[in-house]
């Protein structure tokens, strides 16, 4: 495997796959990195029991001429190069252009009992299930917000789970207004109708959210606030996710400027997906949650631009702009109820790595001070879960990314040619 690519793509989901394929078609030498063992990203994650959607199979099959660098985690950046870790050790991979297709993760918010085994994200349980997590015959409650809840329920049912209900925090009026807008998006309307038909018989409740979970060794009971009062539901698994937030750690480490829509950053890009750093582009969810169609278009656009084919990139922009409007529609209709910010009490764990409670953080107004005093955000997830939750809760913004952006072995770090000075990252 070479250690230099004309175009290096980070993230092998729909955006990264489109980027890699497009850049290779222009004759570039392309590397496609992903921390996961197989390409597909989250939305096209490989399912051990069921065939992937046709679009996913086609996108993965069209990677001729692309070096797929699976199970490669990016841990640090150097001059026009990324330091990556694999099971075999560290590597330095340099690039001419870099396309960030780092996707998104779920927004997970603390509530009493949320650290119990058996409680996962909604997309989280869907991902685990696709990889063989045993759900057949299990009673599952799905909660949180957004269309991902329906997709998760569908996957779970296909794998034999008994989905007791889907609890959407957005009020009924808002979800119905969203459904009416779908007439402008026929492909999505069909998809939504298909899901509703397959999920016939599964209660889909609005204005409802998980208040607390209880159990001894794992989750056994969930209290759900509904517009008509609190319901207690006995279950084996609880999957709860409040939508998606962009993965921006690598972009921040590279020095790319961030934009904010609400409390969470996304990579700032111009209309042709150029970040503030020369030769670095961002496609798909990293540049703001937009969904699958946006990801595929932007992956192709970024690769066109990165290989000097700006006419082809411009040609896709109007279609991309239209698809981005769908993302905005979703954000508006599934906006989070402020009551979700107050689910946890002082004894609720927020930093699951270091066991720091919300009460431990009372009085702190910035992440750095909180970290120094309580270790909040200093564990293995590096604040990806608690820092994002605390930003959503309005406590304080997450502190900036510092290398390594994932825990790495000392041997990998020992290979770094430029050691970052602490000052360079202080306060960022």
């Amino acid at each position, binding site marked *: 495997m070479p250690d230099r690519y004309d175009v290096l793509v980070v993230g092998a989901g729909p955006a990264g796959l489109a980027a890699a394929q497009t850049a290779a078609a222009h004759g570039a030498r392309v590397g496609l990195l992903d921390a996961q063992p197989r390409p597909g990203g989250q939305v096209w994650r490989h399912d051990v029991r069921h065939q992937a959607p046709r679009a996913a199979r086609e996108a993965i099959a069209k990677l001729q001429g692309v070096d797929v660098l699976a199970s490669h985690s990016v841990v640090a950046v150097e001059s026009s190069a990324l330091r990556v870790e694999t099971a075999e050790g560290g590597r330095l991979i340099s690039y001419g252009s870099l396309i960030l297709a780092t996707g998104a993760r779920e927004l997970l918010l603390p509530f009493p009992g949320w650290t119990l085994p058996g409680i996962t994200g909604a997309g989280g349980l869907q991902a685990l299930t696709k990889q063989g997590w*045993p759900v057949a015959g299990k009673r599952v409650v799905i909660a949180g917000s957004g269309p991902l809840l329906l997709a998760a329920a569908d996957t779970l049912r296909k794998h034999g789970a008994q989905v007791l209900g889907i609890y959407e925090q957005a009020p009924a009026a808002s979800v119905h207004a969203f459904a009416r807008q779908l007439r402008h998006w026929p492909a999505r309307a069909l998809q939504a109708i298909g899901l509703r038909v397959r999920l016939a018989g599964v209660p889909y409740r609005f204005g409802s959210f998980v208040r607390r979970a209880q159990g001894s060794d794992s989750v056994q009971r969930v209290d759900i606030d509904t517009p008509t009062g609190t319901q207690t539901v006995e279950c084996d698994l609880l999957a709860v996710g409040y939508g998606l937030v962009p993965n921006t750690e690598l972009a921040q480490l590279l020095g790319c400027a961030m934009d904010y829509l609400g409390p969470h950053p996304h990579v700032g890009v111009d209309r042709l997906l150029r970040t503030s750093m020369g030769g670095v582009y961002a496609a798909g969810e990293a540049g703001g949650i937009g969904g699958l169609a946006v990801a595929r278009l932007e992956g192709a656009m970024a690769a066109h631009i990165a290989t000097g084919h700006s006419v082809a990139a411009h040609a896709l922009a109007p279609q991309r702009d239209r698809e981005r409007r769908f993302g905005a529609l979703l954000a508006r209709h599934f906006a989070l109820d402020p009551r979700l910010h107050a689910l946890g009490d002082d004894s609720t764990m927020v930093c699951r790595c270091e066991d720091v409670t919300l009460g431990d953080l009372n009085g702190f107004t910035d992440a750095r001070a909180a970290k120094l005093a309580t270790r909040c955000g200093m564990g293995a997830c590096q604040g990806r879960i608690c820092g994002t939750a605390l930003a959503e809760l309005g406590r304080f913004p997450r502190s900036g990314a510092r290398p390594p952006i994932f825990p790495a072995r000392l041997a990998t770090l020992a290979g770094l040619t430029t050691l970052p000075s602490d000052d360079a990252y202080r306060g960022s």
Partner: protein
Amino acid sequence: MSAQVKLSVNGSLVEVPAGASVAAAIAQLTTQFRRSVSGTHRAPLCGMGVCFECRVQVDGVAHVRACMTPVSEGMQVITDA
């Protein structure tokens, strides 16, 4: 249906489909993957390699994310629960 893979989880034999994750193999036996710093039991949360709640020992290597690691024949997995 794909081929099956046999591996050991805390000394017990577990069989899962090829391509399944170590997390899925562990879940056949227990919902408890690790103990937190204050001693409470934890299990996978994010399912996608972000939260590190699923970390276990695989073939002698500590802190391996079970959700991101495919099973292989004869693998030795040890949880901290």
